[in-house]
């Protein structure tokens, strides 16, 4: 009678009893068509989202950008960058040689060449390329950032694969156009704006006041926001000092790759995993009552301790389903979008900025470490959700009620900040819930908006893990003394 340490010391099976029992519980939840069908549907949906993303038609450019980062490195202070600028200048010289030969003009930027060709293709008269003020590098203090690159010009017509039918009406060969295109892509990085000045001039406190005004905060709530933005100001200095601000990245305004990966894809993955977690946990926890097998199962030697097996099975199933769904989805995603040279690019890079405020992480995070941290966070959140569903199942009649109960909890916790007074610091802390945390997966680990508190992720997860762990223990104890 060793409880969880019971084992079968036989030649036929050396799997410990508790592990076998967890396996039985997993089998109960995963057999039947619902979970596999949902997983397949979610994967199809995720692939559909990837294929219909704005960046999908631009994946060739993304691959090219990634290749440039791979070849020259991502740091502007490193020798590779000097080489990139040299290669870019050489590319421009070659472009102008050919342009003079074929059109009798020169271009200051490769982007101007493409703008001019696009104009011709559209049947309009191209402006004098040397007179184009648009072609000048932007004032770094302007927000949002702009760039003369072909990449940021939505009217750019990209080269056709058939040189005889390239649509430009000029006698450039396919090879020449490909080369000019690469030069234009390199230009994005080679002709960088003064990113350091941009960060130094970033008025973080003004942004804090904007957020305070936007949400109508006052009192201690506003004080906390100001305090956090003051810390973020210091962190901005660190980012500049480390050189992360100028590191190469996919151009944010054009591709919005941070949003695509961390907001859209992780957002879908989080809610899909959540649905699977609650469904599987509800099914496992209430299985004996729904199949009317409770009287047999709970009168065996294992008895009420089967509930602990069910808890472990729920946590395992939630983790495995979340991990599986994330792994397959992200493998497909990175198969489509090449991140080869940019895995170590810092999220806080100027180039990653998509709107009017850069992504500023509280600690130095690269694409790789941000993704891994976000995935760990998602896994822990799903375990918390599984445990919460398990606790709810102790009070609710069947798995449908567990689902409804969880949805109610979710709604209440998401609504909490809207009913809490906005002059108390509790307004900030009311957002420290796993439900709120997963609403903005692209804003994790960074200072932005009002949910910018440094370390909010780990504070939230630690506190909730503790609370849910305690609730689970109480739930198991209660079940042990419950009339069935």
């Amino acid at each position, binding site marked *: *009678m060793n*409880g969880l340490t*019971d084992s*079968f*010391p*036989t*030649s*036929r*099976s050396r799997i410990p*009893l508790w592990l*076998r*029992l967890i396996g*039985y519980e997993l089998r*109960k939840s995963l*057999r*039947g068509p619902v979970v596999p069908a949902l997983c397949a549907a979610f994967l199809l949906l995720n692939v559909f989202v990837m294929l219909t993303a704005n960046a999908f038609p631009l994946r060739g450019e993304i691959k090219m950008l990634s290749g440039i980062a791979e070849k020259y490195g991502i740091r502007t202070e490193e020798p590779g960058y000097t080489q990139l600028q040299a290669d870019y200048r050489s590319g421009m010289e070659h472009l102008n040689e050919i342009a003079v030969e074929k059109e009798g003009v020169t271009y200051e930027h490769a982007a101007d060449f493409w703008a001019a060709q696009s104009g011709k293709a559209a049947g309009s008269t191209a402006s004098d390329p040397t007179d184009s003020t648009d072609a000048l590098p932007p004032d770094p203090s302007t927000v949002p950032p702009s760039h003369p690159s072909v990449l940021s010009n939505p009217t750019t017509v990209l080269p056709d694969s058939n040189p005889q039918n390239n649509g430009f009406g000029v006698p450039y060969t396919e090879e020449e156009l490909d080369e000019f295109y690469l030069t234009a892509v390199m230009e994005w990085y080679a002709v960088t704006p003064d990113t350091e000045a941009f960060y130094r001039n970033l008025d973080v406190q003004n942004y804090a006041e904007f957020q305070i005004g936007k949400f109508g905060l006052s009192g201690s709530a506003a004080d906390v926001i100001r305090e956090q933005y003051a810390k973020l100001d210091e962190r901005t200095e660190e980012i500049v000092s480390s050189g992360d601000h100028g590191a190469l990245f996919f151009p944010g305004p054009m591709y919005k790759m941070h949003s695509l990966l961390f907001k859209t894809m992780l957002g879908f993955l989080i809610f899909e995993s959540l649905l699977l977690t609650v469904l599987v946990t509800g099914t496992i926890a209430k299985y*004996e*009552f729904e*199949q*009317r*097998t*409770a*009287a*047999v*199962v*709970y*009168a*065996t*030697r*294992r*008895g009420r*301790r*089967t509930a602990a097996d069910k808890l472990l099975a729920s946590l395992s199933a939630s983790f495995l389903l979340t991990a599986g769904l994330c792994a397959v989805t992200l493998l497909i995603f990175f198969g489509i979008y090449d991140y080869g040279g940019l895995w170590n690019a810092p999220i806080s890079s100027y180039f990653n900025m998509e709107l009017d405020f850069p992504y500023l992480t509280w600690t130095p995070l690269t694409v790789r470490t941000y993704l891994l941290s976000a995935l760990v966070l998602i896994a822990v959140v799903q375990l918390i959700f599984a445990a919460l569903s398990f606790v709810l199942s102790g009070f609710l*009649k069947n798995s449908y009620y567990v689902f409804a109960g969880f949805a109610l909890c979710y709604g209440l916790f998401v609504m909490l900040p809207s009913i809490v007074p906005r002059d108390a610091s509790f307004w900030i802390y009311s957002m420290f819930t796993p439900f709120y945390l997963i609403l903005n997966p692209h804003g994790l680990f960074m200072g932005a908006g009002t949910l910018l508190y440094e370390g909010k992720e780990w504070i939230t997860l630690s506190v909730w893990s503790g609370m849910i762990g305690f609730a689970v223990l109480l739930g198991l104890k209660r079940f042990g*003394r419950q*009339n*069935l």
Partner: protein
Amino acid sequence: MLNVHQVSKNFGSFQALRSIDLEFANGVYGLLAPNGAGKTTLIKMLATLLFPSEGEITYNGENITAMDARYRNLLGYLPQQFGYYKNDSPQKYLTYIAALKGMSQAEASPRIAELLKLVALEDVAGKKMKKFSGGMIQRVGIAQAMLNDPKILILDEPTAGLDPKERVRFRNLLTSLARDRIVILSTHIVSDVEPIAGEVIMIKDQRILYKDTVDHLCRRIEGRVFETYVEHDEAETFRSRYLSLSEKQESSRLKIRFLHEGEAMPGWTPVMPNLEDLFIYTYRDGQEQEDKEPAK
């Protein structure tokens, strides 16, 4: 020895059992009462699915709640509503229950084979149970209860769905098992209990009314059970005056077995009472009570 000491069970304001005292040694015990009288509540307490509101249940002097897994290790239980996993085969299902009962696979495999043969399911051991008849399912239930060779075997309405041949075989099986264990058989079918029960326990008004051997119980109404013949047009009047226990059509008249507590009339033949007579007599006033146990 399994003892029930002054056990009561309340569900909110409803008292399902009141101050029950019982003692079980090895042998077959028939727990007899109409549906809703509290049989299942008592059985569930013996199976540790319900906890007494007052009093305690002990096995060899030790509280069964405190014994926890040690007690349940001695227990085999077939609930009234036997649930099963319809997509499992009996083999798979019994393997799972054996694991819950802490049996190693080496122990479980031969035991499962033995029990499947005993309940005549060896030919369908690998078939999914969703295609099984009620009787076949009930036999799976009996097999799972006996998996761990329990010292205390509690069976709640075990013969439901069994055909007459299976019932006889099942009764014989229980008789052989009862030599060295406690077998508690809860039923409202008197004929299941009468031939095999060493003692019969009858519950009425949430209390134990009788606990005695079948013979002793039947003697309680000795001299009060008669048989007579009545014409069809007199039958209704007869039933309104006497408690009819059973009726049988014989030629143009009805042969009525009935209970009367006064002097015998001419034409009445006194007969030996049986347990069914006592059952009908005992519960003559009672409508079947609704099960007041809160729905789960």
